[in-house]
């Protein structure tokens, strides 16, 4: 009876941990393979330990060029889509206007459309319009699919905001601009930063839409795709592992900051009025 009880209590957690194992196993493999000296170009098996790949990550120059290009595209697409999306989020949460359902549909549809369809349709448009494909057509495509995610993310933050803080500022004779600058923006900023990070990671990792609109420009995912046919240099796994490490650091830093902010807020609340 006791055993059954114990099992009934724990089996969900057991399954959950197994599934987490399934989700994280490939990352461990990528990290492991970054220290591998493959036996041949087309081999994916672990062969021999080496530090060479980490010592010379740019041994295949094409790959590093592709990484840099992906970063450039990611940065431009992030800035543009974050600005466009944030403006739209403000309009949607703060203002009444005609045609709201149309705008909502325009924002929702790109998230519900398979990437394949967005990629091919944009290709059809560029070809019909005679636009040569390359760096800038990739940027255009990335901004297009990032905007919706920015709107949704910023909107969530804005909708959860306490309007009374702004009203209080206005009551204390802050102008509309001052209120925006000193109250609204700082409060929405975490949402905007989250949206920007999301946009960058979506752009950096996009393959399908990019593949149809890149012309001869090679981004990192496109490099990996091409290399998969010719043989993958082990440095690809170095980049994969490094990306993972950087993202993990960012998450760790933001959660630490969040905890410190929460503690500071608690301290303020706990301190009796009048004392610093």
């Amino acid at each position, binding site marked *: 009876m006791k055993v059954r009880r114990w099992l009934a209590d724990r089996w*969900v*957690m057991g399954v*959950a941990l197994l599934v987490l194992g399934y*989700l*994280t196993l490939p*990352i461990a*493999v*990528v990290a492991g393979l970054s220290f591998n000296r493959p036996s041949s170009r087309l081999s*994916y*098996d672990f062969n021999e330990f080496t530090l060479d790949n980490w010592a010379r990550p740019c041994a295949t120059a094409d790959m590093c060029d592709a990484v840099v290009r992906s970063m450039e595209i990611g940065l431009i697409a992030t800035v543009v889509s974050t*600005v*466009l999306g944030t*403006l*739209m989020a*403000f*309009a949607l949460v703060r*203002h009444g*206007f005609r045609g*709201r359902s149309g705008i909502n549909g*325009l924002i929702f*549809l790109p998230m*519900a*459309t*398979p*990437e*394949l*369809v*967005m990629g*091919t*349709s944009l290709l*059809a448009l560029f070809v*019909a319009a005679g636009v040569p494909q390359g760096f800038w057509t990739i940027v*255009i*495509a990335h*901004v*297009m699919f990032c*905007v919706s*995610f920015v709107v*949704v*993310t910023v909107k*969530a*933050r804005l*909708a959860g905001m306490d309007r009374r803080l702004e009203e209080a500022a206005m009551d204390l004779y802050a102008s509309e601009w001052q209120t925006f600058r000193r109250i609204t923006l700082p409060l929405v900023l975490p949402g905007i930063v*989250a*949206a920007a*990070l999301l946009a960058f*990671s979506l752009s950096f*990792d996009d393959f*399908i839409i990019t*593949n149809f609109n890149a012309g001869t420009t090679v981004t990192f*995912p496109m490099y990996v*795709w091409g290399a*998969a046919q010719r043989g*993958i240099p082990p440095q*690809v796994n170095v*980049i*994969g592992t490094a990306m993972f490490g950087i993202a*993990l650091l*960012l*998450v760790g830093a933001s959660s630490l900051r969040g905890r410190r902010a929460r503690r500071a807020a608690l301290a303020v609340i706990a301190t009796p009025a009048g004392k610093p």
Partner: protein
Amino acid sequence: MTALAHVPTAGGSPAPPPPVRRGRGRLLPYLLLLPGAAWLLVFFALPLLQLAAASLYDPAGSLSTGYAMTWAVGNYPDALQAYWPQFLRSFLYSAIALVLALLMGYPLAYAIAQKAGRWKNLLLVAVVAPMFTSFLVRTLAWKTILSDNGALVGLLRDVHLLGPDGRLLATPVAVVLGLTYNFLPFLVLPLYASLERLDPRLLEAASDLYASPLRAFGRVTLPLSMPGLIAGTLLFFIPATGDYINAELLGTPNEYMIGNVIDSAFLVRLDYPQGAALSFLLMAAILAIVFVYLRKAGTEEVL
């Protein structure tokens, strides 16, 4: 990255939109919307129209000689006739992957939301962690895991689940496993968001009223997690059906999905009318499924 946890917040009743303003400031919302909406109209909506047009071009044309618009409706049945197996396979594979993902993802989301206690955030990060690194590099890692010389295949051969020459790589199993793996986080996150709001006292009440755990799940947990379940299945199913990376990297041409065909129609065979017709069919099929599903589930504003 971390933001993904906030994206698909399902359910909850949204605040009513603010009223339309009069006089000064009336134009402001339109100015705020203009750049983003224009971008989406020109680079999302307009291309779809162009795709529809391209699907009706004369199939006798070519990229170099140009295409003539002949309203060739016949492109659609022709494309379906040539590639219905890949079409069917796309939906079959992603449906099987979805079932697998639900079996894995529901317990995972439930455990994180209700049982993890102070480990909750750490486990959530572990769910999103795969997305921290490149999709393609992760998918290639499965080539190593499922390799004929790998530990997994060796083990399965030893226990006779696989024959002595049996393999995992380059089989439908590998493609479905890859699809399940790649899109599982999209299912788990909205599900988690729903389950996190579930009040555990409701389950205690059910059990006090002599409901078996199974009955309590069916009558309390499952209905209350519906918004997350719906959002999650859609976020999983839509990209999985249109995916062709897993079929290409983990399968063979025998496992090709409709995405592989469309990719080659546009980039290798340069048969635009056919590629456009197939793309449009894929979108129509997915949209039809989504609308029927949402109607059945009776939920608005899921995403």
